[in-house]
């Protein structure tokens, strides 16, 4: 069942438009990790959802009610939607238990005694009952964030929004916060979590939004997004690819300039000297000694589009080339000495012809 429906959401700032046209539905019980490069509107999406930001245009419905309608009572909507911020946002002058009681007492008019008891129960859930009477300044970052989560669920929200909940934490404290979020997911809480913790996103979510290019660029299961991303930018982000792309436009390329570009790429990708030499050699054997002489001979098939990709995730380097002309696989139809070197240095090679020739060698 759809709990939140977003229709053509757009958010413009004077110098940027992080959300151009977002359309998506969020179902009850969904645990959605929102991932993507910086500046792609992940936090903006969350902040538009609970109207901390006013969308420029578009509509958002929560439980069928349009919260982008100016007549909508936002206080009632925000009760359904808890938010946990990167910077905790606790009240420093209140004790831990008072921080958690505050909203139920003031907004829900819950009796103080009941709010106190429920706050202690929530502190139990996040493993901090013994800190009930402490002030936030006496807690570690991880403990503060666990209190912030307890405070958010004290309002019994239907959905919880987390905006990079572990980004401000010392790495040693990330685990304790993620484990609380994980337990909420197991209890069936509907959640959207903007996060850079990829392993967590993969383990906990049933859906992952990869945000880029002005919206939700790819929406899929963790398996799809992390193992078989369908779209190019998702793939590059997930595999943490550093990429060098260039074109060889004609039969007489400036090889020393190409070499300089490859060496510069090797430095920026922090390749070892051996890995860089192998990359250059595979490129030279496939493209310079294989494809180029063939296209030169037939005077057809230019440009050759070359891409070198290094994955930080698994250390692999992929050398690929796309070119026109008749079917020509340099590893089977080209010079055998060049083919031998390229095949011996590569862990995997693949060739396809679909109107264009595509060859890839993974080192």
């Amino acid at each position, binding site marked *: 069942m759809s709990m939140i429906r977003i229709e053509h959401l757009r958010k413009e700032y004077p110098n940027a438009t992080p959300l151009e046209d977002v359309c998506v539905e969020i179902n009850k019980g969904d645990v959605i990790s929102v991932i993507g490069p910086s500046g792609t509107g992940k936090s903006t999406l969350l902040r538009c959802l609970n109207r901390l930001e006013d969308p420029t245009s578009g509509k958002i419905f929560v439980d069928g009610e349009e919260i982008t309608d100016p007549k909508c009572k936002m206080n009632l909507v925000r009760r359904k939607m808890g938010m946990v911020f990167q910077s905790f946002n606790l009240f420093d002058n209140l004790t831990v238990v008072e921080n958690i009681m505050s909203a139920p007492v003031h907004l829900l008019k819950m009796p103080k005694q009941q709010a106190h008891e429920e706050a202690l129960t929530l502190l139990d859930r996040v493993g901090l009952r013994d800190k009930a009477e402490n002030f936030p300044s006496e807690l570690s970052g991880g403990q503060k964030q666990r209190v912030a989560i307890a405070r958010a669920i004290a309002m019994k929200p239907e959905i919880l929004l987390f905006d990079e909940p572990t980004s401000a934490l010392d790495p040693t404290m990330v685990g304790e916060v993620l484990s609380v979020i994980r337990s909420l997911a197991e209890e069936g809480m509907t959640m959207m979590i903007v996060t850079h913790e990829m392993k967590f996103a993969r383990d906990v979510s049933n859906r992952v939004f990869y945000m880029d290019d002005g919206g939700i660029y790819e929406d899929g299961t963790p398996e799809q997004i992390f193992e078989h991303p369908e779209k190019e930018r998702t793939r590059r982000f997930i595999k943490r690819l550093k990429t060098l792309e260039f074109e060889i436009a004609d039969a007489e390329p400036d090889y020393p300039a190409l070499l300089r570009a490859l060496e510069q790429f090797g430095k920026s990708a922090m390749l070892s000297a051996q890995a860089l*030499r192998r990359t*250059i*050699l595979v490129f*030279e*054997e496939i493209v310079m*000694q294989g494809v180029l002489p063939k296209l030169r001979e037939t005077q057809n098939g230019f440009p050759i589009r070359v891409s070198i990709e290094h994955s930080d995730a698994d250390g692999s380097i992929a050398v690929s080339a796309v070119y026109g002309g008749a079917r020509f696989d340099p590893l089977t139809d080209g010079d055998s*000495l060049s083919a*031998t070197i390229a095949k*011996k240095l590569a862990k995997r090679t693949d060739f396809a012809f679909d109107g264009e020739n595509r060859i890839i060698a993974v080192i």
Partner: protein
Amino acid sequence: MNIEQKKDGKALVLALAGRLDTVTAPELEAALNDALAGVEELTFDFEKLDYISSAGLRVLLSAQKTMNRQGSMKVIHANEMILEIFEVTGFADILTVE
């Protein structure tokens, strides 16, 4: 690539430095065309050679064929990467590598 030639009677030593690749292999080929006449003992010193590709191997193969008729040829001081390329291409069996 830099090519340094040292001739002592019928012995010629070619010391290569840098890269022997698509661009520089023709330079070596031209140097050999000029220098091999009358040579009976050819040595390639690869101490300062960083890189070799198939383009360089083809020139070595051509030199080996010439020297099979005229005398002998050997490669000395090749680095690990070059030795690996000799190995995977079978050149380790064709050339005399010391």
